[in-house]
Every structure is written in structure tokens, then in C-alpha cells.
């Protein structure tokens, strides 16, 4: 049990900070949301022009730099990459589309459940279903091949980009967009958000928190290590919401959510399946990118581009519901996931252990 204390504490800190960040100004049930926050950053940079979701979220910067700093101190920073980068880029776009159909990454899904949003329970069922499909292909030999050691500079670039984001946030030049209303204008103070990100980034680096890994490892190996982190986030955020009177159970009128169960299910199924193929959830990709894993940096960039696509092409859902374009995109994304899953498994050749 001793070896599991760290992951339980990490999950608890994520749950606690998530509730507090909402208290300090973040949107409801959105203390942390990797998908939403990367989407806000895409908007701030002008990659999409949805005016209500544009902000350079310091939490993201903190997560990456917290991981980078701790990994460097512990000599765990390791610049590596080259494991099917374009495939990972495409998978990340799909994960983002799924997340913005549902309206949240797996972490926000947990936080929504902790806030009493029953729509997120439908999302969770979809998420687990997607993970099952991903595991089916893992058992058929799915893998994205090896990564290799790269120069240190390659690994430093993504953390450096995040330092650049911080500079843009503080200087706030006219070419960066900041929402004046809507979720993008609901923000905790910069230094609180940054500190929360740094602490969670460091803890998640040390204890390997991953929301998709919890279910995956439990099914694949009967290993509950990561699941304990997942449940710990839920438990602490739930208690926190109950104490602060932010627990409002039901389906209707949940904050930044819609009630279309089918599309909540399918959106999170895309996220679960895609994340298993990527080897980790969006949060985990940020943490790994901070450790010098440039395949994960590519994934993070794919998530940002995916968010821009979602808003530019009218795929993203809103509180009003799902769009037709969004529904069509989900169908296309499932076909692409199937093709990627099939092509990288052992159906075509015995390539699993190469």
C-alpha cells in the first residue's frame, strides 16, 4: 500500500485544486480541463476565433513546467521521440474532437461527475467503452514503434514554448486574444493558476497520474495503481463540492455541458480509444512533453490544432447541444481510428515485438 500513497495524494491534490480554482474564478466544473484549456490557448493565439474561449491558461504552462523542473532535478528528463509522430498528431486531433463533442477531457469528465453532472456519467460509460476497443487492438499487437534518443534541445523546445506562452500572457500584446465574456473570461488569478499547475505538474510527473491508464491497466493487468489516482480525484472533488455547496445533481442545466447522451457517449468513446492508442490521456501527454518526450509534445500540438479545427469547422458542442458538423466529424474520426488501429496491429504483419 505504501507505494500507492503518492498516487492517491496526487489525485487528491488535483481534486482539491480543481475545486479551489473554480472558487477563485475558473469556469464551473473546470478547475482543470486539458482539452478546454488548450482550446482556450488556441483561441488566444488566434488559431480559432470563437470569442468566448480565448485565454492563455496558466494551468497548462504550470503543468508542463512543473513536470520539466522536477524531471530535470531528478535526472528523469530524457529527450526522445520519433515513434510515429504524424500518427500521434492525427490521433490527438481526434481526441480533441471527441473531447469538444462531450465538452471536456477525461479529467473534466471526472470533475463534472464530482459536481453532480450526470451527463458526464454517460460520458464515462463511453470513455470506458472506447478504452475497451483500444485494449482489443493492444492485445492484437497495436503499437506505434520505438522512440529514440534525441538532442537535449529537441526536448527543451516544448517547455520553452510554454515559457513563451507565459511571456505572452503577462505582456498581453494586442495580437493575443483574451475573451471578454464566456468561459474564456472566467479565470482564476494568473499566479494561483500557475502555482496550481506547477504543483500538479510536478506530482503527476513523479507519480505518473493518467486518467486513461487507470481503466486500461485495471482491465489489462488487474493493476489498480493509476485507478487509485483517478478515484482520488473524484472523491476529493466530490467532497469539496459538497462542502462549498457546488454539488448540483441532475442532467439538465449543468454548467458548460449538454444533455445529448448519445453524443456524450460517442465523444468520450473517441477520447478513450484515441488516448489508449496514444499511451496516455491529454494530461499525461503534457507531463511527458515536460519530461522531454517529443512524441507527447507532438500530441499536445495536435490537441491545439484539433481545437482550432473544432471551432473553425463548427464541430465543437455548446450548452445548446451538438452540431451536425460535429456529428459527421465523429463518424469520420471513428473510421480513422479504426484504420490506424488496424494498420498498426498484427493483422497485416507480425510486427508487434519488432
Amino acid at each position: 500500500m505504501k507505494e500507492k500513497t503518492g498516487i492517491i495524494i496526487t489525485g487528491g491534490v488535483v481534486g482539491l485544486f480543481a475545486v479551489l480554482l473554480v472558487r477563485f474564478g475558473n469556469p464551473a466544473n473546470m478547475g482543470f480541463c486539458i482539452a478546454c484549456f488548450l482550446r482556450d490557448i488556441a483561441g488566444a493565439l488566434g488559431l480559432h476565433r470563437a470569442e468566448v474561449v480565448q485565454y492563455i491558461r496558466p494551468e497548462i504552462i504550470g503543468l508542463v513546467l512543473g513536470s520539466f523542473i522536477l524531471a530535470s532535478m531528478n535526472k528523469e528528463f530524457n529527450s526522445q521521440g520519433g515513434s510515429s509522430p504524424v500518427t500521434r498528431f492525427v490521433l490527438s486531433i481526434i481526441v480533441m474532437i471527441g473531447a469538444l463533442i462531450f465538452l471536456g477531457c477525461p479529467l473534466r469528465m471526472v470533475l463534472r461527475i464530482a459536481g453532480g453532472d450526470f451527463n458526464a456519467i454517460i460520458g464515462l460509460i463511453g470513455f470506458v467503452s472506447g478504452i475497451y476497443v483500444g485494449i482489443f487492438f493492444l492485445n492484437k499487437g497495436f503499437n506505434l514503434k520505438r522512440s529514440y534518443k534525441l538532442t537535449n534541445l529537441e526536448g527543451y523546445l516544448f517547455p520553452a514554448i510554454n515559457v513563451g506562452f507565459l511571456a505572452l500572457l503577462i505582456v498581453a500584446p494586442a495580437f493575443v486574444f483574451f475573451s471578454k465574456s464566456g468561459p474564456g473570461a472566467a479565470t482564476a488569478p494568473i499566479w494561483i493558476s500557475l502555482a496550481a499547475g506547477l504543483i500538479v505538474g510536478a506530482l503527476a510527473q513523479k507519480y505518473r497520474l493518467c486518467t486513461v491508464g487507470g481503466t486500461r491497466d485495471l482491465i489489462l493487468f488487474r493493476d489498480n495503481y493509476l485507478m487509485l489516482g483517478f478515484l482520488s480525484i473524484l472523491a476529493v472533488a466530490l467532497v469539496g463540492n459538497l462542502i462549498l455547496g457546488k454539488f448540483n445533481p441532475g442532467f439538465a442545466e449543468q454548467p458548460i455541458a449538454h444533455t445529448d447522451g448519445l453524443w456524450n457517449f460517442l465523444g468520450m468513446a473517441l477520447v478513450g480509444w484515441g488516448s489508449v492508442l496514444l499511451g496516455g490521456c491529454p494530461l499525461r501527454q503534457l507531463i511527458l512533453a515536460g519530461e522531454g518526450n517529443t512524441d507527447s509534445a507532438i500530441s499536445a500540438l495536435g490537441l491545439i490544432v484539433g481545437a482550432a479545427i473544432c471551432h473553425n469547422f463548427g464541430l465543437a458542442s455548446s450548452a445548446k447541444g451538438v452540431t451536425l458538423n460535429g456529428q459527421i466529424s465523429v463518424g469520420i474520426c471513428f473510421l480513422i481510428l479504426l484504420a490506424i488501429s488496424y494498420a498498426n496491429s498484427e493483422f497485416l504483419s507480425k510486427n508487434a515485438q519488432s
Partner: protein
Amino acid sequence: MKTIDTCGMSCPQPVLMTKKALDEEKDGIDVIVDNNTAKGNVQRYLKSVGYSVEIEENDGTFVLKARK
């Protein structure tokens, strides 16, 4: 003793490769990993299925020696 090399493989491949190798080589195997996450995951898995694990470190990689 059979050796499998998981260097550069992303999650959960190191554990999957270990599991598969043990299906064929029940007495034990050597697993090479190149990061602490994989080291922890493979070690936890090996112990959970009843192997003792000895770890040798050399130059950034680890060899996990799993024995019945």
C-alpha cells in the same frame, strides 16, 4: 534466459511485452527498460504474477531480472 528490450516503447507496451514473453518463458526473463515509469510498471506486474525481481542499472537503462 530470454531477454526482451522495451527501450523507447510507450505505455503500456513494456508491460504487454513482458506479459507476452512470460507466456512463452515461464521460468523467468530479463527485461530491459529505459525509464523509471516502465521500470515501476514492469516491476509491479512481475511481482503481481509471482516473480522475484532484481534490478541492475547500467548507463540510463535498467535490467529487471524476473525469476520464479
